[in-house]
């Protein structure tokens, strides 16, 4: 965590420009006053120490661009939105990934497999803003076709606002998980214990659900941790297109505006979140696979 904070701090200050610059130039006095207000006039090393000590106490400071808002409040107000979106997206991605992956393994090299794998390639290679724009267009056409508003085209507030954005957000991960699930299932199918189960006379359904699926899911679960973090933090495009007040937008805008405090706050927060997710996944692993229980 300290490493993330330090690396970000150095990278931020290495970039030319600063948060106080604007299209219309300011006099030297005004610049000095602004700099003094935000502590930007102190030497870099001193700024770093001040920043770290505040951070340890949980205070990320005040945003440069939204001058009346504390970074803590920004994170507090907007992260839950990104989290809700992310959780729904991951749910779609996980359910979809497991389902499609299982189907392709079952119908290996037949039509369903070919179709799904083609869609998977699309899902992995097509950038998210294309899906977001297409998704929104689909909603507009849907509403026009029905003559009334079935699903909202953008915005935030109700469950129906979350449907399309989280679907779009989860698509890339869903494709990834499908592929993973597919190869994992195909490996498991050839394992000895499956042959044993068949020899024992267990029904195909029981073999599929109790033995094959449960074992094949492991690689998917491993990847799920970092994927949750990636989805929750990578929602910028979806948030922009669907007008969702999430943290992703603030993060990207902060980088563009060189809003030091917001950049540091959100980066450190995301870092902590990622670490947390990875730990969580390790714990869940222990429940799914008894062979990996923590001693």
């Amino acid at each position, binding site marked *: 965590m300290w490493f993330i904070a330090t690396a970000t701090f150095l990278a931020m200050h290495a970039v030319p420009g600063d*948060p106080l*610059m604007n299209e219309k130039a300011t006099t030297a006095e005004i610049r000095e006053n602004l700099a003094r207000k935000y502590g930007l006039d102190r030497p870099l090393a001193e700024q770093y120490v001040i920043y770290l000590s505040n951070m340890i106490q949980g205070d990320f400071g005040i945003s440069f661009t939204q001058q009346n808002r504390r970074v803590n409040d920004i994170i507090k107000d907007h992260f839950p939105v990104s989290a809700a979106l992310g959780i729904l997206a991951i749910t779609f991605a996980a359910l979809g990934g497991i389902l499609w992956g299982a189907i392709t393994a079952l119908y290996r090299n037949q039509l369903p497999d070919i179709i799904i794998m083609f869609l998977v390639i699309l899902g992995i290679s097509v950038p998210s803003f294309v899906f977001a724009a297409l998704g929104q267009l689909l909603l507009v056409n849907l509403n026009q076709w029905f003559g009334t508003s079935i699903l909202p085209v953008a*915005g935030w507030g109700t469950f129906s606002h979350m449907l399309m954005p989280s679907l779009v957000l989860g698509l890339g991960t869903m494709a990834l998980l499908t592929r993973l699930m597919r190869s994992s299932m195909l490996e498991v199918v050839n394992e000895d214990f499956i042959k044993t189960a068949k020899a024992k006379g267990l029904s195909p359904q029981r073999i599929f659900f109790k033995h094959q699926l449960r074992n094949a899911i492991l690689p998917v679960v491993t990847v799920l941790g970092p994927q949750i973090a990636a989805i929750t933090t990578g929602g910028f495009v979806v948030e922009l297109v669907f007008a969702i007040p999430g943290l992703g937008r603030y993060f990207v805008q902060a980088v563009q505006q060189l809003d030091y405090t917001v950049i540091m706050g959100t980066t450190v927060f995301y870092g902590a979140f990622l670490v947390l997710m990875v730990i969580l996944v390790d714990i869940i692993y222990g429940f799914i696979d008894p062979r990996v229980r923590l001693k």
Partner: protein
Amino acid sequence: MNFFKSLAIALLLFSGAIEAQSVDATRQVVKIALAQEPPQLNSMKATDQVSIFVLGHVMEGLTRYDRRGNLAPGVAERWALSSTAAKFWLRKDAKWSNGDPVTAHDFVFSWRNAVDPKTASEYAFILYPVKNAEAINQGNLPVTDLGIRAVDDHTLEVTLERPTGYFMKLTAFVTTFPVQERFYRSVEASYAADAGQMLYNGPFKITDWVHSASLKMQKNQTYWNRQTIQLNGIDADYITADTRARLNLFIDDEIAYTQLDGETYKDALKNQFRIRPFATGSVYFLEYNYRPGRITGNLKLRQAIQAAFDPDEFVNKVLQTPGNLPGASLFPSWIKGVSKTFREEFPAKVLRPDLERAKRLLAEAKAELGVEQIPPLVLLVSDSPTATKQAEYTQGMLKTKLNLDIKIDVQTFKQRLAKMTEGDFDIVGAGWGPDFDDIMTFGDLFASWNLNNRGRYNNPEYDRLVRVAMNSSDPATRMEAMAGIQTLVHDDAIILPMYEQGVIYIQHPKIKGLRRTVIGSDPDFTHARIVP
């Protein structure tokens, strides 16, 4: 088919009522989208368009603009002007949203605060015509020395530093809006951070503000002129910078107004919406670097580029959205002159491409500089789609016509600003929008003392003409000085004007009375209404 319709109805019920009506004639409420979350609703510090849009609706200064765009009484009922002083009589029924009357002391407080160096307001310079404002802002005098005084609760006196013909125009500007000191001190650090952390004296007030999600304004029942306000609410239910998302919201009848760009323009045409053009008032030009050692300091080179450029071709073939005008002058066509527009009274020299002359001038430039070939020039631009188009066109045009090499340097916002300030460019794609409704806002741009003169152009004659216009309140004298500047801009090829920006937008046909303006709060919903 039935399954889908039932699914749709189920979703509808599940999610609660979704209203898809951007205008409500019964309730007189209009729904819009904001391009970004307003970063600063403290009127003494706000600089960006979105914040000024909101503030222009929920607060009011001494004067305001009426339906026709003329200066009209605001908090001030009447006023008397002399060459270096102004006296305002405030109306007794102007009230804040908490019931307190708006007093002269509120103006004294906000003006002092705006020029206070501790506030570090980026628009403090707008008050420089007021006596001692500049000295105070530079930390040389206490704020109490500012030339503004509350004679009593409803009478305000302003003393000017020098005769300033456009002073009245400033009294409608956001930085001069009043702020009640008592309220401000009670919330200080979080003033204007939320809807409840501000007092409103305008036609509307903010009733609900969910950061980055929505901002709702309702008619202010304590506004002195509430009888003339027909709208009951302006709901900004969506906040996104994506123009396509806003177009989709418009098609879905969720918002009643949105601006279009090159991409969304074609889709709007397909949907057969009525496209309306509007000149934003900004001019875009190529600015040269005049620092020592820069090749662009050579006059013949700049004149060669000027002679090669075809503004009509650029606007019609490259920009391709309607509403843009070919660049001809530093001063845009809407700026007022003495009685008509400035450009009608003092027409700019027409820029017609003359390739022969351009080549001749280039040869002379090379001779003067003592080079066989002009080295590649760096053209710095922002990363917006229009700016990159502009850069690519310029590069291609100069290469084909004059065999000049241009290297395009695309930079994001802050990095471009940093390079401009450092002087790390040969040519920069720049633009300028008006701060107030007077020719001076463009005229002083290349004065040697102007910090926005990023190329560091320095010409004593230019400076002299600016001072003449600054120190006189006679319109004819001022306009003639500005005409001199216009000629200088052309003859000395100080900049290369490329275009005057126009935007295109669509609005719901049931909205009437929506005012577009180049200065201040735009678009202005104050006198808008929704017809049934």
